[in-house]
């Protein structure tokens, strides 16, 4: 799975989403909270931490240091608050008042004292009402206030009265009642200082760390909506409670006042604007009471939906979704609701699509790394398990992101839906057009491990549905899908559509035909010979009869499916002569570059002589792939015409290897400043055989000033004997001021020269490597860089024929990093030298090392390693890796080559 996908995806969807009621979740506690100030109850471990770090004066901006973390929980009787305050100097004062019911009176806390700079924690609690709310104060001495506050609307007369001096009525004579037997409780636990002793309150001589606290408040005095009230019978009496809190929302803002800080107030409201806390209730965080069983993934999805209102998902939410794997998809499915705004469904299906992309991975990976995904896709009950993810298939309107989500996460319900459409007299064409690209992309990318055959079968069945075929946009989309998925069984329909009166359908059919026919090419899925012949015949007939240039261009591109065919070659030549259209000509030449048609040279030559613009560019590309002496006159004419080289012309000149062009290229090189074009010119010169170009390359090496060019020229000198090169290579290799990378190239190139100069140079480097590589020698924490330098010096000596150097090469190879091992093995492959590192590499657990070892084995002594090569080919996980499209090094080709070399009569066992 591409791990960035979900991040990007979520980043996009949440930014563009509409507004929804936002609610994060607070968890139910299965066991009552023991109010002792210690946050050791299980629910506190699971509860989402709420950061109380937002600066009071700067909206949305958090402090650099952590100030306070709050956590909320609930049960049927109480709202529970836990928090941890971080403070190096705890200051708390009482207000000399006590409030509360008899038996549960609370000592009051001072909330402002300019002399003492008190610290106090506040919680503002409302059930969605911006006019009426509770304000709670608590401090490190466990002193507690409860103030019922009224924020009158400005149009209320009381707002301008003496009761509301700041637009707020502070009813501090009111206090939170108990709801017997449920009582208000609060406690504090001072955290230990560095010496292990508890932090001290009102002692500035030491460094405190803060405290933890718990507060428990019955729901009834908080003013919970009565809809949450339940009744039960107890000893024959009707008794209230517990409250039904599931789904109940509460607005809750936490505030920390730290008297020592210049920024005195910190709070938990990312969206809150600077004003009295009471007056910003609509911007306080909202929490919904959820069950204790909610998974981390469900909590993350809920947060994601809540974050939608804030304009973007938090990093923590995205991280939680990414790490949840398929659980995120299952959790998102739990929130799918056709009645909710479309933006919510878009987001949820995006989550499903991103998480379910893992279905492309091999089941053994899923079984180990995401067992829930393995269960969802591979268990006997997979069809039923996938249903929730596919709920949207039955919706009247499909969200944009639904197709990818269902193809990836719910293949079995999706197949069922497609089958039902294939059988319907009036299939839902609009929805089919939405789904086809997602199916096509998934199959074309080789992601479908489980149901490829079923998907192809249902696609063929849809092609037979007259309603689908009769609707041009749907038929065009289906043709594309047939091509993407290489649905061979729909071949007859594609052939039929090649003759459609609709030009766009003929174009789509031509492309589709080419893709299906290409399935028969070497290395591609098998195509029955009969089908292939039928398609070829249809293609030839269409090319002959077609008049539309757009369709002909598509037919020319499709012709690549028959790269060796004389018939196709002849048809292309005929079309090339018949159609002057640039799009058709260009399309033919692009195909020529990828085929071996007998008539290719004529088409290339003709175009080089006559074409211009994009057609000439395609002709030059084809000439670079299929160089031929017959191109020379035209290429020389172009050389004479063009004052500045085009990259395509440089490649074509280099490919044809004409020594007479050497002067021209060298002249260009002298004028050219662009480093990339200069590199191309150097490579083109190098492709010209003979002493003339070798001398030019040697001169370039001697005068190279740019590291990149020096690097390239060293590589050339390593592969081709350049006269007098060893002197320059030796100088470069020993030059401590030159870039290490270029010197490495020079050292390896020295191995290509067996003269005294190069031997002496390598000997000096070998005898005192640390002197020549002082920078590497200084890195002592990991000594390998210097060892690496020694390894490559020894390797160059081995290349010169010094067999004694092999012992050192082997020893250092075994201790080397995989990257170094790859370099050594590629070096051995280049010089076709059998050496023990090859056998070691063939056992490697690194793909790149293994591939390099296979190539080295094939180049050096294939017969000796035949059994190892066979074992690699038969390894189940190598097969899986290759089938997964994860091979960028073309291991099968390397294995084929090595195996073929092993069976040649001259192979040395």
């Amino acid at each position, binding site marked *: *799975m591409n*791990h960035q996908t979900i991040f990007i995806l979520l980043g996009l969807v949440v930014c563009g989403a509409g507004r929804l009621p936002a609610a994060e979740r607070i968890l139910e506690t299965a066991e009552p909270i023991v109010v002792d100030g210690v946050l050791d109850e299980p629910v506190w471990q699971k509860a989402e931490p709420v950061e109380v770090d937002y600066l009071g004066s700067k909206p949305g901006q958090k402090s650099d240091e*952590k100030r306070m973390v709050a956590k909320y929980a609930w049960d049927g009787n109480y709202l529970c608050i836990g928090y941890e305050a971080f403070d190096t100097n705890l200051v708390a004062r009482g207000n000399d008042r006590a409030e509360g019911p008899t038996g549960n009176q609370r000592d009051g806390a001072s909330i402002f004292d300019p002399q003492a700079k008190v610290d106090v924690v506040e919680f503002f609690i409302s059930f969605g009402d911006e006019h009426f709310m509770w304000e709670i104060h608590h401090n490190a001495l466990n002193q507690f206030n409860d103030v019922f506050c009224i924020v009158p609307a400005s149009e209320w007369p009381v707002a301008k009265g003496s009761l509301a001096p700041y637009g707020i009525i502070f009813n501090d004579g009111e206090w939170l009642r108990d709801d017997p037997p449920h009582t208000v409780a609060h406690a504090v636990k001072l955290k*230990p*200082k*560095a010496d*292990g002793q508890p932090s001290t309150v009102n002692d500035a001589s030491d*460094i405190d760390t803060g405290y933890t606290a718990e507060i428990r408040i019955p729901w009834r005095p908080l003013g919970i909506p009565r809809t949450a009230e339940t009744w039960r019978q107890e000893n024959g009496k009707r008794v209230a409670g517990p409250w039904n809190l599931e789904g109940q929302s509460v607005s809750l803002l936490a505030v920390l006042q730290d008297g020592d800080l210049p920024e005195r107030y910190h709070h938990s409201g990312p969206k809150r604007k600077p004003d009295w806390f009471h007056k910003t209730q609509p911007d306080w965080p909202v929490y919904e009471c959820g069950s204790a069983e909610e998974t981390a993934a469900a909590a993350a999805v809920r947060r994601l939906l809540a974050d939608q209102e804030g304009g973007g998902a938090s990093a923590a939410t995205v991280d939680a979704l990414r*790490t*949840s*794997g398929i659980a995120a998809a299952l959790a998102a499915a739990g929130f799918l609701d056709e009645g909710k705004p479309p933006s919510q469904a878009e987001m949820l299906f995006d989550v499903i699509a991103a998480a379910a992309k893992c279905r492309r991975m*091999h089941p053994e*990976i899923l079984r*180990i*790394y*995401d067992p829930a*995904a393995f269960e969802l896709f591979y268990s006997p009950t997979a069809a039923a398990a996938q249903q929730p993810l596919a709920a949207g298939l039955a919706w009247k309107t499909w969200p944009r992101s639904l197709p990818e989500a269902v193809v990836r996460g719910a293949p079995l319900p999706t197949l069922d839906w497609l089958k039902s459409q294939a059988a319907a007299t009036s299939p839902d064409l609009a929805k089919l057009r939405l789904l086809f690209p997602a199916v096509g992309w998934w199959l074309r990318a080789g992601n479908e491990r489980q149901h490829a055959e079923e998907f192809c079968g249902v696609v063929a069945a849809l092609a037979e549905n007259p309603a689908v075929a009769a609707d041009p946009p749907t038929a065009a989309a289906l043709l594309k899908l047939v091509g993407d998925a290489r649905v061979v069984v729909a071949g007859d329909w594609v052939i039929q559509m090649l003759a459609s009166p609709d030009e766009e359908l003929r174009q789509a059919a031509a492309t589709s035909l080419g893709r299906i026919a290409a399935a028969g090419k070497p290395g591609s899925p098998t195509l029955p010979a009969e089908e292939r012949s039928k398609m070829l015949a249809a293609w030839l007939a269409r090319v002959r009869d077609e008049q539309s240039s757009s369709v002909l261009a598509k037919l020319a591109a499709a012709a690549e499916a028959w790269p060796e065919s004389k018939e196709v070659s002849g048809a292309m030549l005929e079309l090339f002569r018949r159609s002057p259209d640039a799009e058709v000509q260009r399309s033919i030449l692009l195909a020529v570059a990828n085929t071996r048609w007998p008539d290719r040279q004529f088409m290339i030559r003709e175009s080089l002589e006559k074409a211009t613009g994009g057609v000439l560019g395609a002709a030059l590309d084809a000439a670079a792939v299929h160089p031929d002496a017959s191109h020379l006159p035209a290429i020389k004419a172009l050389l004479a015409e063009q004052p500045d080289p085009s990259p395509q012309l440089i490649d074509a000149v280099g490919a044809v290897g004409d020594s007479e062009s050497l002067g021209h290229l060298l002249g260009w090189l002298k004028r050219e400043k662009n480093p*990339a074009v200069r*590199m*191309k010119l150097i490579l083109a010169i190098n492709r010209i055989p003979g002493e003339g170009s070798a001398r030019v390359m040697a001169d370039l090496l001697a005068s190279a000033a740019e590291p990149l060019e020096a*690097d*390239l020229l*060293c*590589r050339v000198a390593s592969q081709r004997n350049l006269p007098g090169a060893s002197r320059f290579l030796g100088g470069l290799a020993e030059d401590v001021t030159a*870039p*290490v*990378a*270029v*010197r*490495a190239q020079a050292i390896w190139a020295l191995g290509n020269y067996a003269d005294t100069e190069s031997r002496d140079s390598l000997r000096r480097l070998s005898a005192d490597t640390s002197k020549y590589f002082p*920078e*590497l020698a200084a*890195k002592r*924490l*990991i000594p390998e860089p210097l060892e*690496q*330098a020694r390894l*490559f010096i020894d390797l160059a000596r081995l290349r010169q024929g010094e067999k004694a150097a092999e012992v050192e090469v082997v020893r250092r190879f075994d201790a*080397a*990093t*995989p*990257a170094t091992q*790859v*370099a050594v093995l*590629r*070096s051995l492959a280049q010089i076709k030298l059998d050496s023990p590192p090859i056998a070691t590499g063939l056992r490697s*657990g*690194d*793909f*790149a*090392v293994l591939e390099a070892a296979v190539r080295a084995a094939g180049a050096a002594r294939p017969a000796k390693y035949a059994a190892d090569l066979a074992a690699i080919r038969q*390894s*189940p*996980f190598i097969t*899986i*890796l290759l089938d*997964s499209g*994860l*091979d960028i*090094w073309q291991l099968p080709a390397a294995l084929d080559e090595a195996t073929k070399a092993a069976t040649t009569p001259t192979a040395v066992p």
Partner: protein
Amino acid sequence: MKPPRSSSLIALALVSALCPTPGRGHESPIDHVERELRLFAEDGKAWLVYRLLPTERATLMELKTMDADGDGTISDRERAGFFVGKAQAIAKKITLNIDGRPLPLEPGGSVRCDPQLGQTFLFSGPLPALQPGRHPGRLVDGHSRDYPGGFVWKDPGREGSEAIRFEPVTPATQAGPHDHPPWLELQFNVVVR
């Protein structure tokens, strides 16, 4: 984080030297491995929570190694055996120094695999007696030398015992496939209160 880039170029240069393309390719042919670390003190020990995020290709190659009997499936025993060995190998390659003194790490617990193809290892080692104050420390990850990639030190200086904190000196993040050092080296202060 020290950026000792040039020291590794010698191998990488030779790798690119033998590639068919003329330009400089990717710096290493080896699959990169992203890392997340947590480093903190608790219960008298230094703890390193070490999460690797290998590519899917590297994961499949590991399954090939795990599959000791070559039957194409991984038994619990094969998996456990592989990860025990891997944890020990990584522990040997990580060096942790405090006040210049080495603090050997031992693997502990079982390796946790997660849906991001993540593998989380737990290492710990006993902390020496440290006086209040700041003690320079350094972690060098030799495993990242073999398998380089970006890294994130999660919650630096904010985890574990409040009396002893590992506070970063060097940046705690180095991400991006082309923007990471050749190996991971963290410098930090152990702050004892």
